């Protein structure tokens, strides 16, 4: 399949993806500003961040379609600048925007794509059928791409990314724009891939997606990595165990902030509600009532990656 010399260069225990001080500039704009990343075999690794954080630029460099401006990048033990075709032969890429071939049928999209990898026609046909089954599109095999729903197109793009039996699958926002049913189906399929030992690298700005799929993730903001760890570690480090959301009937919530001071580790005032970051939600709520405060509504919940994300990247709209 790929250059045999390329395979022996993999040293035991070397990460599949290894980046040090990786930089991508477009003219004077720096999209990726010196990041260090290691992805181990079999891992599901996530890049989290708001729009414009540099996630997609990083993915394109890892996918060997965008040359790095600076730093070190090694994929599968090889250098993308020199071994691009050999590396890409072992990657599966699911881009942010579906770029399926509208002039071909669903099945032809897979068989034609397989040919770009030099896969023999017979094997390509067999794999196409297996993959259509895997993403539950067998019934639409002869259909054109255009009438498919967004979720179906996404699943077809994922199937296409698997046609060369890749060792690493890169997924750029795999469920953006999909309805809940379609998202869960995609997650379930990705989880199955992970169980089969495929290394997954994905970008997302959905916190639930990151919590569902990622063993480890980095949060990016402004082209830099601002935090790294497992979802649980990040919540422990950058948030509290629980969050209590209080909504007061008064016009301004800000007036209540002083009265709440000292309850929990941190108090955040939003235009429509106040968030208390606490270890124990019940205890905090009891403390609120002790101070004779009566919020109009109360929500106690577990802290999520979303709290971490907003804490690290701020609440301001990026674009």
């Amino acid at each position, binding site marked *: 399949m*790929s250059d045999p010399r390329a395979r022996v260069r993999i040293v035991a225990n070397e990460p599949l993806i290894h980046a040090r001080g990786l930089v991508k500039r*477009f003219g004077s704009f720096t999209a990726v500003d010196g990041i260090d990343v290691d992805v181990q075999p079999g891992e599901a690794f996530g890049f989290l961040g708001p729009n414009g954080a540099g996630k997609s630029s990083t993915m*394109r460099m890892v*996918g060997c*379609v*965008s*040359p790095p401006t600076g730093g070190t990048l090694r994929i599968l033990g090889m250098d993308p600048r020199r071994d*691009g*075709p*050999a590396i*890409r*032969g072992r*990657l599966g*890429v699911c*881009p942010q*925007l579906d*770029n*399926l*071939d*509208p*002039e*071909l049928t669903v099945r*032809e999209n897979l*068989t*034609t*794509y397989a*040919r*770009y*990898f*030099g896969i023999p026609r017979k094997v390509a046909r067999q794999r196409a059928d297996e993959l259509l089954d895997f993403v539950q599109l067998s019934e639409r095999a002869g259909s054109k791409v255009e009438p498919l729903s967004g979720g179906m197109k996404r699943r077809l793009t994922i199937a*296409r990314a698997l046609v*060369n039996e890749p060792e690493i699958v890169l997924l750029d926002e795999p469920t953006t724009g999909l309805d809940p049913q379609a998202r869960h189906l995609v997650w379930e399929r990705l989880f199955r891939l992970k169980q089969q030992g495929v290394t997954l690298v994905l970008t997302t700005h959905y916190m639930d997606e990151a919590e569902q799929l990622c063993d480890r993730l980095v949060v990016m903001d402004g082209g830099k990595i601002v935090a790294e760890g497992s979802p649980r570690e990040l919540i422990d480090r950058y948030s509290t165990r629980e969050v209590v959301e209080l909504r007061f009937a008064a016009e301004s919530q800000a007036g209540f902030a002083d009265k709440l001071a000292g309850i929990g580790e941190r108090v955040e005032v939003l235009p429509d509600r106040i968030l208390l970051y606490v270890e124990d939600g019940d205890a905090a709520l009891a403390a609120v009532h002790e101070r004779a405060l009566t919020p109009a509504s109360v929500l106690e919940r577990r802290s999520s990656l979303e709290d971490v994300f907003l804490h690290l990247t701020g609440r301001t709209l990026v674009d």
Partner: protein
Amino acid sequence: MLAVAVGRRALSVAERNVAALKSAYWIVLLSGFLEPLLYLLSIGIGVGALVGDLTLPGGEVVEYAAFVAPAMLASSAMSGALSETTFNFFGKMKYMKLYDGVLATPVQPFEIALGELAWAMVRGSLYSAAFLGVMVSMDLTTGLRALAAFPATVLTGFAFGALGMTLSTFMRGWQDFDVVGSAQFALFLFSGTFVPAESYPALLRWVVELSPLTRAVDLIRGITTGASGGHPWLDLAYLVAVLALGLWVAARRMGKLLAK
């Protein structure tokens, strides 16, 4: 080893076009063949009846239809290659985002250019083969000469395909194709197609002589009529140079446009 991999990957790009061949496409193919045939019938035969015979620069006397036919042949090879590498290629690159997907595989920009060009050449050659058949049946050339002219038409298709692909990488939108269409029509009219290049005033003549289609017409006309006044080696060198330069520029530009 490397050349085999490059060739294999380029072929997979051409193969995609075969898979995309659908009934509607055959209508496009047919119109590309019909157009030069209609010109041949109306001008070559119709106007030819008024013009009578023509004396070529080499001294040979041929009937007007035999003079025009090889030019129509070269033009159809040109238009087949151009429509594939301008409209279709541009659409695939900019609107269907086809190559974004292809470049995520081992296929490289140069191989896409090569594969698309090979396909354009196949399409151009289909036109040419059919048209040569018509010329033989109308007694405008001999079977043997038609066979010899075929590779020259393939080269013509290759050269214009590479040129069209290069142009496509500079296009900003569909409106730019109006310019390409006009340029193509000007080439069609003024490339020694309907009148010999020698009959233009000195300055204009040199413009005409430099047109790539003039070189293709000169080459093919020399073969189909057996005229001796042409410059076949010069024509060959010119067309090969256009091909090499076009392919090189197109591959470089594609790398720049797609691998950001």
